[in-house]
């Protein structure tokens, strides 16, 4: 499966697509992303280790926090995950 990163997150990671293996859940896939790109952690997780509330996470186009079991939502090889921060320019 792979992650797609948008705006500032892609710049922090230095790439906008990151492949991860061996993840069974959205949370494990997120852990794998953050191990591949540790600089993302402070932008994506808050002090207690949960996803910051100003970033939206999608799993195959759906919000797993609304439509699934959040970070426990199962993932399969080939799935696409994405992280979207807000932007403000005009």
């Amino acid at each position: 499966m792979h992650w797609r990163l948008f705006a500032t997150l892609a710049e922090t990671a230095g790439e906008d697509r990151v492949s991860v293996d061996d993840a069974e859940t959205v949370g494990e896939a997120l852990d794998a992303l953050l191990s591949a790109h540790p600089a993302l952690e402070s932008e994506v997780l808050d002090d207690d280790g949960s996803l910051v509330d100003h970033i939206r996470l999608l799993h195959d186009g759906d919000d797993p926090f609304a439509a699934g079991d959040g970070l426990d939502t199962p993932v399969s090889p080939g799935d696409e995950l994405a992280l979207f921060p807000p932007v403000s320019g005009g």
Partner: protein
Amino acid sequence: MVDLDPEQLDRYSRHVIMDDVGPSGQAALLDASVLVVGAGGLGSPVLQYLAAAGIGRLGIVDDDAVERSNLQRQVLHTDDDVGRPKVDSASEFVADLNPDVTVDAYETRLTRDNADELIADYDLVVDASDNFGTRYLVNDACTLAGTPVSHGAIYRFEGQVTTFSGEGPCYRCLFPSAPPEGAVPDCATAGVLGVLPGTIGCFQATEVVKWFLDEGESLDGRLLVYDASEMSVDEVPIAPNPDCPVCGSEPVLSSVTEAAYDGRCSLSESADD
């Protein structure tokens, strides 16, 4: 409803001959009023196309003067306008383009103190601002008033655009609070591809015109994310958040004068600002 005069039947003939617009659709546009917050990169194409389409009354809120560095993307303003208030060059552009449009120019920043009064006078608000504070203020004031909002925002090669009906979900259902200061830089710091606000602003103008025509599928409930570099579009679903402090089942905000629109713009007491 307005009756179209012969000059209007000519000016708007390409609308009038469309079955989905027709004389009644054009009359609805002439009867509409829109407040555009920001006469910059996004506000330029929004004002140009809404004026051309014959939106009957356009309000323009901006407290900035034109700078030369704006001209790479803010196509309402010209080199001769450098140093002049943006609302002046924007108003002149609209007046020159279409005498059917009444322009209300407000050379001011949108604030907690003037937002309710300004918004109350319009059918719809376009958020073409350039900072998170104004964006959360527009969202909160319009959601409390039940006023629809066209939202657009840009960063380098990427743009985000959606439409909020005013009934919820709202921008806070999508992004409950702003990122920490500096985490998502503005155009002055990060730069922006000059044509990007043209694309995103045209999406916003499209949504506004459709709104008044009551035509097609609105972006209500989904954020369109456009990447000019990849020429790709993604959609982020926007579900109503029952815990939303503005449009949820137990809202905590009853007036924008109670909130602070700086830092994280957070409405939850537990969040660290």
